[in-house]
């Protein structure tokens, strides 16, 4: 029997989902009307389903997001790789998420360039402090593995 965990992934641009696929042959991709579905087979008994959306669905509808987010271990936000502050679209996406959900969320962005930028809290809108940041290069060959491992590490100690 297979065990599956489901992870919603949001991005400000659908091109940002590409690094998730990388060159990993164990990840298959299926496109649905309003989301991209990635199936990551870790081994014969363990799988991860990624539901990739470039918007936060309207709350209140019986949406896919409403069903999946509360039961997911965490969610990811993929944002533009520049080292500056977050775009307005990203900020709005974060606050829409924080307003509606309490599932831990991790913002994935490229490693910052300067020491000052290594203080992510400064870059964040004060309302958005519920989000944690994971730094990684989009060109990292182990992008998906890296962000999953980091997110799991961050979630486990708080809840075990």
């Amino acid at each position: 029997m297979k065990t599956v965990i489901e992870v919603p992934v949001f991005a400000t641009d659908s091109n940002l989902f590409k690094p998730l696929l990388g060159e990993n042959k164990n990840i298959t991709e299926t496109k649905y009307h309003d989301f991209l579905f990635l199936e990551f087979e870790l081994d014969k008994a363990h799988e991860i389903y990624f539901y990739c959306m470039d918007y936060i669905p309207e709350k209140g509808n019986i949406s896919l997001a409403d069903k999946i987010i509360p039961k997911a271990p965490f969610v990811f936000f993929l944002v533009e790789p520049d080292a500056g502050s977050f775009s307005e679209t990203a900020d709005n996406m974060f606050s829409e998420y924080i307003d509606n959900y309490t599932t831990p969320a991790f913002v994935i962005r490229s490693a910052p360039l300067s020491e000052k930028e290594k203080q992510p809290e400064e870059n964040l809108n004060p309302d958005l402090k519920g989000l944690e940041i994971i730094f990684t290069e989009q060109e990292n060959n182990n992008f998906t593995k890296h962000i999953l491992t980091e997110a799991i590490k961050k979630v486990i100690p708080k809840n075990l």
Partner: protein
Amino acid sequence: MKEVFIVSENEDIFTMFSKTLSYLPVHFSWVGDMDSAEKQFRTEKPDFVFFAVYKLTLLHNWVARYKSFKLRIPFLCFISKIGWEKRELLWMAGAAEVIELPKLKKEFKQIVETVLVSSSDEGNDAKLSGSLNVLNVINLIQTFEDGKKNGVIELISKNRRGQLQFYKGKLVNAIYNNSDPIEAVLAMSLWRDGLYTVTYDKIRHNHRIKLDNRQMIKECQDHILNHEKILSALPDKEIVLYASPTIDYEELGAKDRTNLLYFKFGKSINEFIENDSEGMLDFLKEIDSWIDKGAFVGKEEFQAQQLKIKEEKNKSGVKKLFGKIFSKKEESQTHAPGMIKKNKDSGEDYSEKKVYMFDRFNLLVEYAEILENQDG
């Protein structure tokens, strides 16, 4: 119609091309990666080949393979920022153009358009085509009238496509979305960014427009003037407007709801015009009144209102219940349907946050171990 093969591992890039360049008289086909493209090249010869690859090494490999087929079909390369520095080799290999992605939509359109359209000009296409920037719908009707011919004019602008049908030089029918013929002509008379293609035929097209060409042109002129008048009366079109989080969308009509939702996370009026939604003009006419009603706010006010709503949500259950009862009472006294609810002390019915329910943390540990032990 020119045929372009898009060789890419990813279908997204094809979608991007066909969406962004839909107004060009070009047909894009996604032929998959080089392996499947190779099979297609044996049976079909496109007018252009576009290679879109994330990794530069793979792109070089594909270009080398493509060159070995000796097809002599011009090709363009699209690469990511990562491979951009080393693009000289691609030019040396004969690429008509090497384009870095992502790129600004306008710039991207211009580059690809220059390559494709200049090439199509060289062809002996029997159809007559040109830019709507040079000849708009009014000019086209006049031109057709002078020739007294039968035929159709296809208009393509952004993602929109319409058709004008002529019989003996008279405009007899127009097709755009599900609009009635006159509405369709009026809508298309505003198109300036795009292309037209004229095809003469011997078909007796349905006579659905009763107005003669003169009257129709007059209608178009009035419509264009009215459109310009509305646009010039608008507030600063560059300012980003946010739809107030206090709007009660349930009480609005479908068109207003769609148009207001467009501004949900902040958009400028220019972006809204560019989007050209149904009922856009009527909505713009009323924009001042929407602003007066408080439907649109600036960024700071938007954030302040969001914060206030959040505070409302955090009120205790009992207080919230009282809030609900009183807000309903208050609402029935002060708000007509379609009006925007004022946030002030309304205690609106904002539902709770969805609670984090995941509890299989031992399973996560198992996943972490598997990931750690994987190669690479």
